[in-house]
């Protein structure tokens, strides 16, 4: 059986990436994987609905982190999709037999080991299968503290979940790694990509502009939607921001950890400064979440209102605008 180093992480995709690389003797923290994969993002897409609520995302599209890590010079990640579950499961079994830990994209709703309350139809959950015992697979699911087990039938279902982001049996493994990875250009590339998304988007729903756009919308929710619907929308935003997998503060804290690590590794004080500034932004997001939770609970304190929350979000936008402008300046040095 494969001796797979399971390290618990906050976010599934960066966790899987870090764990898979670690298995190949290229140690990498989750935050580093997240940063190299340019995972940070913001997008508010009211025309895409999840259970009738607008899509808010604080991170890059599912798959982006792994994609970028697979593009590192010398790293090769083999990816396969399948048409039929039996083919997909056979390929998985074969890979495990050959001693290859395999990453899978799955639908959370069909994984019985997940806490009931988190079983929503979300189809871009990543995990690593590293063994099989009888009908059960041994799984390193990065958001869980210890490895878990899952029955083959359930796993097959999860791999062929339908709906948005359907995984279609997607499996991947690290086929080749170089002896050593020169991190500096990768860190720079990762930061550049995030800066571009956050600052340079021509599309008003993305990046800093997206944050401001959402703030303006949020301020109008009570009158446009009525109190009940407005609270649901609000709760949804907080959920996307703080739910399992974000590491808190809508991935801001995780990215800040990446900036700190990079700053120390490259001896660049500018990155450390940006890290603390981004932490401040994450803190602001959290303060917003706390107020939002009070409102959703129908226990608002004095001074809690949608307008105040919109202002908090606008502050986050200005914080982050500054952070990424600083980072941009650093990139140009």
């Amino acid at each position: 059986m494969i001796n797979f180093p399971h390290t618990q992480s906050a976010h599934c995709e960066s966790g899987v990436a870090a764990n898979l690389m670690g298995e190949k003797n290229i140690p990498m923290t989750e935050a580093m994987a997240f940063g190299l994969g340019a995972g940070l993002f913001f997008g508010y897409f009211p025309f895409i609905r999840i259970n009738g609520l607008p899509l808010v995302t604080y991170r890059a599209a599912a798959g982006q982190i792994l994609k970028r890590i697979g593009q590192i010079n010398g790293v090769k990640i083999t990816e396969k999709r399948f048409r039929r579950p039996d083919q997909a499961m056979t390929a998985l079994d074969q890979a495990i037999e050959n001693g290859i830990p395999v990453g899978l994209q799955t639908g959370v709703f069909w994984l019985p080991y997940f806490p009931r309350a988190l079983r929503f139809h979300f189809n871009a959950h990543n995990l690593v299968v590293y063994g099989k015992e009888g009908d059960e697979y041994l799984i390193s699911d990065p958001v869980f503290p210890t490895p878990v087990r899952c029955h083959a039938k359930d796993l097959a279902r999860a791999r062929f979940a339908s709906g948005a982001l359907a995984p279609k049996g997607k499996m991947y493994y690290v086929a080749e790694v170089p002896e050593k990875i020169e991190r500096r250009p990768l860190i720079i590339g990762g930061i550049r990509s995030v800066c571009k998304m956050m600052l340079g988007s021509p599309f008003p729903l993305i990046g800093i502009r997206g944050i401001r756009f959402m703030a303006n919308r949020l301020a109008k929710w009570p009158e446009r939607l009525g109190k009940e619907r407005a609270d649901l929308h609000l709760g949804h935003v907080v959920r996307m921001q703080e739910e399992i997998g974000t590491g808190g503060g809508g991935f801001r804290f995780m990215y800040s950890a990446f900036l700190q690590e990079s700053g120390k590794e490259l001896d660049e004080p500018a990155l450390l400064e940006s890290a603390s500034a981004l932490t401040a932004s994450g803190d602001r997001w959290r303060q917003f979440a706390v107020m939002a939770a009070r409102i959703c609970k129908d226990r608002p304190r004095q001074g809690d209102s949608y307008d105040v929350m919109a202002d908090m979000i606008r502050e986050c936008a200005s914080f982050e605008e500054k952070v990424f402008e600083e980072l941009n300046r650093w990139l140009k040095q």
Partner: protein
Amino acid sequence: MKTSNNDTEKDIANNIKTVSYTSDADGNQKPVSGSYWQPVNVVNHQAWREIEKQIENSKEKIRAGRVSCLHYYMTANQMSVGLLASYTGQSSLLVRLHLLPFIFTRLRRETLQIYADLFKIEVEDLIEGILKPPLYQQGENGKVQGNRNID
């Protein structure tokens, strides 16, 4: 963020210890294992209350004879007509028709079997209109797990 969370409100994630990033005394962000951050709990409860409400509505409609019991299973498993259609390999229109009691009671056993397999229930449940718990409340052997701590 520097928070230590001592709030003991019922944890929606069965007290699973998840990791989040917290800054230590020197301002270094570190992944720290701990249970759920309380405000997330609040909004998660809110989301589930909404789902429960939809389930109640669905039961109400079934009692009134306006929809078939398939509507309950669809709603309880958080599916839309489109999603249910793609899981069962049928067109949305067909699923929509199956939601009508008049058509549902006349369905062939094979068609019902598709739904029964998906929701891990028996065909008889569908025929007799027995409302079993949704998938995420079924234990490993199909048994119902007790004490739902959402609320």
